[in-house]
């Protein structure tokens, strides 16, 4: 008989849960299942996986900890949460790594069986934290998970010994399902789909483990209350979870299809961008041609070639790869060919922190090429937004015949949120024109610009009569013939810049969240959206006069940015770098801005931004 939690159990608008264990403990899978169960129960979520550094560290050590944090909520959830309310710690190392993040009073479910002297030592504990009183500020729920799980699966027929303990994450998951009043059914179904055929014994063990954990929750009376989270009123539609990298891959494919084009994706693997390639490579039947090049230079150069030949060409990489792509990207600027370059930013400089988030490639995207080399720079703000911005990137690229750099980052890439699946029919086509006749009487002029957009015609090889030559040298206007004439250079430099600037006429104005004018405007870009929006919302709830403007277009900037900036007494720019957007705004609009910078390989916490807001509005 199920014992209900006490009636007075509070309703939580949001709860942050963190699953942490060794790399081998299946924490990513556990987190993903929990996310799925939550969204299927109509809760909003935002998730953040944390992998160990690239190479597998020895089991049980701090370096080997794998974690998955998720915020579940009954209203707009914008971040994976600052601090876990609930921690599931499968071993001492994961407890040690996670503890500094926990607020006092947090609930900690520990697998006591893993707190052996050997494991404690590997984690660098000299005494057992479960016994030495160091956890007295938390609600510790000790559960002998390994033992209970072994018990649960011991009778599964044909189960290979080595799989017995592998199901213990399902036990933990079951327990947490009970705690959050979530149905285990989707996970049971998933287990069947995943293992049912290939290995029925493993499927059975996992299912038993899950239910054993769930039932343990019912019977053991370990918790003072269950977490009741109201469900969200999502707009009607079909939903799925989506990560930034998935969204980019789908956005690119969509853009190509919306133009009736092949998608050419050139890539050289690099963390955290490789998954875009992994998502695209299976899509051969979508006319997706993925080209794994010998290096980033070749990936970029091949994309330039593919664009010249008429394909929708894109490349994806991270910081070090961007440097290698710069020269061929600059060629695309000069040749005025449309393509999309994705930079999934990670910690730098140099190899830096390959798996961690940072936003320090903004100025590089804008200025990291020799000569005056203007191009479009956009940055999605959430995983779902990445889908839209990938399409938008191609739309702008084709409109102005220009490369577009899309700045994602290591956080966006891997974090996920619910995505209301659009009807592909509702996505407007991307108009592409390839001329088939000469544009100047008897001659074809490859650099004769469209008077409105200043784009040159995209005439593609294979078209009879439009044979022409392009290249990286400066050109005579219209004919495109090589020219060293001073006036030609000046004019072409201006036109290349002007054509980008004119896009400001077709991109949306920047939206302001909050009062139209007031004490403080917080300006952000990229993946910090959630943390900033949340902080601004909380500040507004406190009655502070604070607004938020998030820039999805960095070049050109929306036409209203300058005016908006001037309507507030102060401007705060939080960034995961040393102040790059801040530089841009000061240089462009001569408006003094306050910077809030973090370079720790981690996203902002809401509270960090909130504090800065409070200081700026209250504090002076």
């Amino acid at each position, binding site marked *: 008989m199920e014992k209900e939690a006490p009636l007075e159990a509070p309703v939580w608008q949001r709860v942050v849960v963190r699953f942490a264990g060794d790399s081998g403990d299946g924490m990513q899978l556990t987190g993903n299942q929990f996310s799925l169960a939550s969204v*299927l129960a*109509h809760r909003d979520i935002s998730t953040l996986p944390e992998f160990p550094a690239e190479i597998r560290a020895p089991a049980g050590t701090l370096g080997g900890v794998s974690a998955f944090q998720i915020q579940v909520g009954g209203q707009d959830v914008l971040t994976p949460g600052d601090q876990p309310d609930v921690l599931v710690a499968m071993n001492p190392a994961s407890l040690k790594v996670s503890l500094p993040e926990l607020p006092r009073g947090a609930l900690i479910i520990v697998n006591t069986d893993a707190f052996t002297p050997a494991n404690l030592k590997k984690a660098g504990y000299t005494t057992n934290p479960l016994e030495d009183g160091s956890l007295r500020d938390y609600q510790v729920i000790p559960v002998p998970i390994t033992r209970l799980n072994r018990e649960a699966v011991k009778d599964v027929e044909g189960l290979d010994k080595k799989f017995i303990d592998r199901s213990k994450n399902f036990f933990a998951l079951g327990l947490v399902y009970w705690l959050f009043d979530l149905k285990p059914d989707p996970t049971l179904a*998933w287990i069947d789909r995943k293992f049912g055929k290939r290995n029925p014994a493993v499927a059975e063990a996992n299912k038993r483990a899950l239910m054993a954990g769930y039932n343990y929750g019912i019977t053991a009376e370990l918790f003072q209350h269950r977490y009741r989270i109201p469900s969200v009123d999502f707009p*009607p*539609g*079909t*939903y*799925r*979870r989506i990560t930034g990298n998935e969204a980019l891959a789908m956005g690119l*494919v969509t853009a190509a*299809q919306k133009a009736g084009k*092949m998608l*050419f994706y*050139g890539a050289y693997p690099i963390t955290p961008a490789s998954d875009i390639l992994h998502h695209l490579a299976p*899509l*051969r*039947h*979508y*006319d997706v*041609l993925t*080209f794994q*090049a*010998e*290096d980033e*230079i*070749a990936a970029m*150069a*091949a*994309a*330039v*070639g*593919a*664009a*010249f*030949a*008429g*394909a929708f*060409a894109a490349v994806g990489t991270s910081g070090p790869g961007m440097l290698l792509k710069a*020269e*061929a990207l600059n*060629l695309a600027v000069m*040749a005025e060919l449309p393509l999309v370059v994705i930079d999934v930013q990670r910690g730098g400089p140099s190899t830096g922190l390959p798996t961690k988030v940072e936003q320090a490639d903004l100025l590089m995207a804008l200025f990291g090429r020799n000569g005056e080399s203007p191009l479009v720079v956009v940055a999605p703000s959430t995983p779902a937004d990445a889908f839209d911005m990938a399409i938008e990137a191609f739309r702008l690229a084709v409109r102005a015949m220009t490369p577009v750099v899309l700045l994602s980052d290591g956080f966006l890439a891997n974090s996920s949120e619910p995505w209301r*699946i*659009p*009807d*592909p029919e509702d996505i407007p086509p991307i108009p592409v024109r390839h001329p*088939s*006749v*000469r544009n100047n009487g008897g001659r074809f002029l490859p650099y004769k610009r469209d008077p409105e957009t200043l784009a040159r015609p995209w005439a*593609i*090889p*294979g078209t*009879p009569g*439009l*044979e*022409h*030559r*392009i*290249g*990286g040298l400066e050109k005579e206007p219209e004919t495109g013939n090589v020219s060293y004439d001073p006036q030609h250079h000046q004019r072409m430099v201006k036109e290349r810049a002007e054509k980008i600037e004119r896009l400001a006429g077709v991109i949306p104005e920047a939206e302001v969240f909050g009062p139209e004018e007031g004490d403080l405007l917080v300006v952000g870009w990229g993946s910090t959206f959630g943390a900033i929006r949340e902080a601004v919302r909380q500040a507004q709830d406190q009655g502070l006069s604070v607004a938020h403007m998030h820039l999805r277009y960095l070049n050109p900037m929306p036409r209203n940015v300058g005016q908006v900036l001037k309507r507030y007494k102060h401007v705060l720019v939080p960034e995961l770098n040393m102040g790059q957007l801040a530089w841009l705004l000061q240089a462009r609009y001569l408006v003094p801005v306050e910077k809030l910078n973090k370079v720790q390989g981690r996203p902002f916490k809401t509270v960090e931004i909130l504090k800065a807001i409070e200081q700026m509005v209250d504090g002076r």
Partner: protein
Amino acid sequence: MTLTVNPKVLTKKDFASDQTVRWCPGCGDYAILSTVQKVFAQLGLPREKFVVVSGIGCSSRFPYYMNTYGFHTIHGRAPAVATGIKLANPDLSVWVVTGDGDALSIGGNHLIHAARRNADIKVLLFNNAIYGLTKGQLSPTSPRGMKTKSSPYGSVERPVNPIHLTLGAGATFVARTVDVFQSHMAETLEAAYRHKGFAFVEILQNCVIFNHGMWFPYTERDRRHDHVVYLEPGKPLRFGKAQEKGLVMKDGKMETVILGEDAAEEDLVVHDPSSPALAFMLGQLRDPLPVGVFYQVEQPTYEEWMYRQMEDVKRQKGKGDLKALYHAGDTWVVE
């Protein structure tokens, strides 16, 4: 205005663009340009199907002078750009024109990877053993000891052997010809065109300004016969004014013999372009210098495999549908 082009009536002139050719008077590049224009006219392909891609260098100005589609890209990257073009549109006939610096120095990696992938692109390497455009520095094919602006006391580098390098990289067609051997060049280019897959043609080229006479031992009319051997499939390796000399194999090495004196016709090595080891051995020879097709083997091209896979997957899974893509995995409905 109608733009129909009848490939049958094309002539060399049709392939000349309206741009003034800007090489130094006497540069070997002129002869190559002329032959390429002639050969293109004879291939039976309309002009718009040709794309000539180059890097940077004197030689790399080539596309500007060809009335086809052309792309003068950046230094060393032409094979990669060409690969992108060919993958995006396998229908095009894609030619790369490059120099010894462009292809073998900065562009070495793209060259070897294009070779191993076997995309159907044709690479013409104008080898003048010098950096022409930047006015006379050492190139990877400059011989040791050569004095240049960047090696005033003589080069201390071992040069690269372009035939060996491309063989080592797995090229399916490797050949050599010479700027002034007009008809040989024409045959070689045509063979490269007919080859299904990656084709590499080294063209020895005279730079009159910075490395004049580099190849004279092989090109001067009176010496040529004694120092050049023409490779012809199935034929014994003979050379000399009266074809009086030949090559035999001795202790795993090639040696020159006088026919009738040191050896008989039957003793001569017979050229077999399908043998990589023979090609490698021939690649070592400097005197006589072999010209012609060293190696040729038929293999599926990169784009063939790629498109075949795309078709296979379409056949198996059906043509991709965005709706299905978006809905893959777990979804839930809110009403």
